[in-house]
């Protein structure tokens, strides 16, 4: 095996990076694929709670780097999925505890044994972000259809271009179809036109995501969740499968359904 290292980034905080990492990882690992998640947000660790693994942490990434434990010992196995692991971030205040070359070394150690390493980048474009993209074979940029998130995504894409990180792909998270329909939210076409990179997923705004993170069970494991379906589709596209984008008609509101029932277009 030679793992593909995928970094999930966004620039702006709060757009759903950590949720995206947890869900893509769960969706990938559900099919017998071996996945390791790496929390790159030193000092503000969160991937552990979103994945529901906070009570199992013994060692973290800084313990690995500083030689207090072996890489294997810092890998926490998921509660439900035997092929999914998390390497948690440290809660230290020292942001310089990790360097880009540390990240490259850890990923290279993981590569022979797993299929995917998924890195949760911190918000911002400083050290933590640089650490997170250093080992990446591929970067997924998460944005929301909203001015500040799109602007920050553009900054990140610009940096990736300058660093010659090969073709990043875009995830539009928290799309509200009702607002798009009434022209009060940027449409996926608008966002793609502005950012000019290929799309790999559109995730609808969905309350089940919050319920999932409350419970520490990412929604990609819930067959009924619309957001979960969108994350499973992204996982398939990562593996190279051709999956059509979610039919926007399915999310259409009551008014639209009524119009259809009465045969009006």
């Amino acid at each position: 095996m030679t793992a593909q290292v995928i970094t999930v980034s966004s620039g702006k905080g709060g757009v759903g990076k950590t949720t995206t990492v947890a869900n893509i990882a769960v969706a990938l690992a559900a099919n017998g694929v071996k996945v390791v998640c790496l929390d790159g947000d030193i000092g503000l660790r969160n991937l552990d709670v979103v994945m529901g693994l906070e009570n199992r942490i013994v060692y973290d990434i800084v313990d690995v780097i500083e030689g207090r434990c072996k890489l294997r010992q810092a890998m926490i196995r998921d509660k439900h999925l035997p092929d999914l692991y998390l390497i948690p971030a440290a809660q230290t205040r020292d942001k310089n505890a990790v360097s880009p070359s540390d990240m490259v070394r850890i990923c290279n150690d993981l590569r022979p044994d797993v299929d995917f390493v998924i890195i949760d980048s911190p918000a911002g474009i400083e050290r933590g972000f640089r650490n997170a993209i250093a080992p990446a074979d591929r970067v997924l940029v998460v944005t929301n259809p909203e001015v500040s998130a799109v602007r920050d995504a553009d900054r990140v894409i610009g940096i990736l271009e300058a660093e010659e990180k090969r073709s990043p792909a875009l995830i539009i998270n928290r799309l509200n179809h009702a607002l798009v329909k009434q022209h009060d939210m940027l449409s996926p076409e608008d966002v793609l036109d502005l950012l000019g990179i290929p799309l790999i997923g559109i995730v609808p705004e969905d309350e089940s995501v919050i319920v999932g993170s409350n419970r520490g069970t990412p929604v990609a494991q819930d067959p009924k969740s619309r957001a979960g379906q969108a994350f499973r589709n992204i996982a398939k596209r990562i593996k190279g499968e051709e999956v059509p984008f979610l039919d926007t008609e399915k999310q259409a509101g009551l008014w639209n359904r009524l119009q259809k029932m009465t045969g009006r277009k």
Partner: protein
Amino acid sequence: MEPPPKNDREEIMGWFGSKRSAESAKERLQLVLIHDRTDLTPTELTSLKDEILEVISRHIDIDSNAVQIAVEHDGRQQRLVADIPLRSVVRRRTG
């Protein structure tokens, strides 16, 4: 009761009559991304345009009212596009 002064009423009408917010968002982002990507402020872009026109008009007569200079984008490619109409000069034939 007095009706609200005209200005307020116009403002309220403006809310309903104006374009939807998604369109404003896209237009504002288009401008801000041009400046972010080129690292040029709107003021710098204006003086760039002025200087280009000054140099050109030193050599040929241009129709300065019809000039269009703007940064356009095609995917992630930025391009400074200038459309500068020239004034036709009536040449007198000699001989």
